[in-house]
């Protein structure tokens, strides 16, 4: 921007004058304030970080507890056989084992218990029926 000569001289005069000087102590005071603010921020971050660490630890503990609970429930032997008709259940289990030799004793017993409880939740061959009935789709050839 081109200024008229009079205004240009005034601008030069303004530029030439000694600018106001801050107190020599200002630099130190200001850097202390900066340090304080940086420290306050990092402590705020630590508090925030502490909360999230606590939340994460609580969530992890809850998940671990749920996992162990399920595991404990699945692995617990409730000894139902001792209270029921144990001889019949054992016999059924043996028949299951006879039909499915690859099945473990524990699984055979569990299936026997379920069968005696009248449950049909798990599809298993019925060991009490004759073996031929286990193949109802057998085709009769009449030619």
């Amino acid at each position: 921007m081109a200024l008229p000569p009079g205004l240009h001289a005034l601008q030069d005069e303004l530029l030439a004058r000694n600018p106001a000087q801050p107190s020599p102590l200002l630099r130190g005071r200001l850097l202390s304030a900066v340090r304080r603010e940086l420290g306050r921020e990092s402590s705020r971050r630590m508090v925030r970080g502490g909360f999230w660490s606590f939340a994460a630890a609580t969530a992890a503990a809850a998940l671990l507890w749920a996992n162990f609970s399920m595991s404990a429930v699945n692995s617990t032997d409730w000894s139902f056989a001792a209270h029921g008709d144990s001889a019949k259940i054992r016999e059924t289990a043996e028949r299951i084992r006879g039909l499915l030799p690859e099945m473990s004793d524990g699984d055979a017993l569990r299936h026997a218990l379920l069968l005696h409880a009248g449950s049909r939740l798990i599809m298993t061959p019925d060991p009490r029926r004759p073996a031929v009935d286990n193949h109802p789709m057998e085709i009769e050839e009449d030619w």
Partner: protein
Amino acid sequence: MTEPPVEERELLRDLAAGREAAYARLYDQYGRALYATALRITGSREEAEDTVQELFTSLVRSRRHLPGTRNLKGYLFASLRRAAIRVTSTAGPRAAAHDATAEHASEPDSQRATSDRAGQLERAVAALPTEQREVISLKIDGGLTFAEIAAVLEISPNTAASRYRYALEKLRALIKEG
């Protein structure tokens, strides 16, 4: 919009990382101009120092946004203006209306002749309306371009330039009167 120079980008990165040395460097580079501008806006040495301090603490608080700054100087002076408003609005009534004009009173006699003229200039600048005083201060004390002044004051560069010219004319008239 052009990228800032490499040194400025490094400085902005260090400021954003919260390195105290970067804030010291920033003060060494811009502290004097910022103080002079703050003094012109607030009219009080104490409030000018508080304003510069307030600016630096607010920079620490908002430092995460600094790497995106295109013009550090413009950003600093715009923040300084906001800091000055905060400081002057919270401070009580001042005892001395304009410390800037009183600065020359304690100078020795040898400097008195030139100082008289300087004092006259200071008084005239202090008597300018706020808008004109701001533009004079940003241009003379801050060394900002009209584009930078426009960004700081949120006006167009043409308005900044014409406001500066009116301010100089008013200043000349005040000096003639005084």
